[in-house]
């Protein structure tokens, strides 16, 4: 039986899921801020009457954005300070990304990958830009509702429109992200690692060979791998036995 390699720290796992849950709530209530749910009978589903009331929907939207903004800001600062830029695109990612996607549907062979797949790095920047635009325009909306800034009529219109349109882009990006993970079996171990933080050694060796070599190959990195294992044991999981 193969061992396991630590892929994500608990902080990264938390970042992902806080963003995912608050993002889903924001998407749903964001759609509710458009006049949709009453027209499409959603508000008539038992338990969903609140979706027909703009004040309630906006209150939930605002509340979810507490967590969303916090995690966006945390993500930017935490990983920048730690100089963790592995998710930023590299040269050749477009070509290799296409090869990865083609391999998912059974055409050709996947190129060797680092910790992240090339297509993941491209997707990260895409969704990152969308999230940044949503966050900035959302914060501007909060500030002008607080009357801490006064926007000229044109700026207020443009800001609102950018927020609404990027909201739609976020919805598309979210659907594509979830679909790619769920529809292709080759991605399922990645989903598991997004919950546990750990990934099968075999999987890492095959799909992320460059990263695997870095973790396993260099003598000094073996030490790091052990540190990671010990750290997880300290965090109180049974995971230390999985090694």
């Amino acid at each position: 039986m193969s061992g396991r390699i630590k892929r994500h720290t608990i902080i990264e796992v938390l970042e992902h899921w806080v963003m995912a849950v608050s993002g889903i709530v924001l998407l749903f209530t964001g759609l509710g801020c458009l006049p949709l749910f009453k027209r499409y009978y959603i508000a008539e589903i038992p338990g969903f009457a609140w979706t027909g009331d703009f004040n309630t929907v906006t209150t939930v939207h605002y509340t979810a954005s507490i967590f969303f903004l916090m995690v966006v800001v945390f993500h930017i600062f935490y990983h920048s300070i730690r100089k963790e830029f592995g998710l930023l695109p590299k040269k050749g990612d477009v070509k290799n990304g296409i090869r990865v996607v083609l391999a998912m549907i059974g055409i050709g062979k996947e190129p060797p990958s680092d910790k992240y797949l090339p297509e993941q790095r491209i997707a990260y920047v895409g969704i990152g830009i969308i999230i940044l635009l949503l966050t900035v325009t959302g914060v501007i909306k909060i500030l002008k509702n607080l009357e801490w800034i006064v926007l000229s009529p044109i700026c207020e219109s443009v800001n609102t429109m950018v927020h609404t349109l990027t909201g739609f882009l976020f919805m598309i990006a979210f659907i594509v992200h979830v679909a790619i993970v769920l529809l292709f079996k080759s991605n399922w171990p990645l989903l598991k690692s997004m919950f546990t933080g750990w990934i099968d050694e075999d999987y890492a060796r095959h799909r992320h060979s460059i990263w695997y070599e870095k973790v396993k190959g260099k003598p000094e990195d073996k030490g790091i791998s052990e540190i990671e294992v010990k750290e997880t044991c300290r965090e109180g999981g049974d995971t230390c036995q999985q090694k």
Partner: protein
Amino acid sequence: MDITRRGFFLISTGLLSSLIIKENAHAVEGRYATLVDITRCDGCSSEQIPKCVEACREQNRKRFPEPKKPILPYWPRKTYEDWSDRRDKIDTLTPYNWIFVQKATIEGRDIFIPRRCMHCDNPPCVRGCPFGALTKRPQGNSVINEGLCFGGAKCRDVCPWHIPQRQAGVGIYLHMLPKYAGGGVMYKCDLCKDRIEKGEEPACVVACRQRLKDNAVFTFGERRDIYGLAKQRKEKEGLYLYGDIQNGGTSTLYLSKVPFEAINRALIEKKDRFKMPVDVKNKIQTTFNPIGKAVLSMGFMGMAGAIVGAIISKRVHKGGDEDVRKD
């Protein structure tokens, strides 16, 4: 010249602010206000049509909707809002009638109340429109951009007085997915935006004064003067004031001899579409803004947590996994 990082930040902020804040933007309240003295309004009983209504219709006739027929229902619903066959209706607000004179009977006496958009200081319609079709102007008026409005009618739902009115079969939605999204264009009083930008008074104000001279129902002017006048008359004549605190403050003040609670009760009894509730909270101020402050605070907390967390974790992994983490 060398620019320090701090200097660059200050210059950028300054430039950005100049884009955001117009020099003549009257922060929140807007420049003008209207006093509507209903102690003087007789509903133009001797006229065929109230003068303010007539002037408003004349002023805005060119902007009235000309819907393309047949009009599609709002799928999956089977309904749609079409006022185009009732253009002559003047006793309520419609897309073709942006002001009307409401009648309420209290203790056997008739009271006449000209009703139109209140032009709130922090208007829920403007703040809530998902397409940015509504804007608040420095003059204090809230304006619908007919070219951007999808006709979802959210503005009507969030307006405490449900003022904006919808006409289907017109607007930008016809060019997108007319069957599935959008419902027309919303229409309401914009305080004669083109006139007041030129320094002229709204058409209704002028028409009323032409009939009643010094005893006119409407007084339009600088907000500070209008608020001062309203409060002075309230004190001196023992009148009741409406619009100064409702929904967090508006640019339209009503003066009445009868308490507005009684007027509202009469309107409720009459089952009028448009009421005058006295206790009107501005949801943006009372509900959303406290959460907004929490959002901003937690943003800063996220930053602080990230800095502290990153420094601590770096110490824990001293001499550690740079190569791996750099990927």
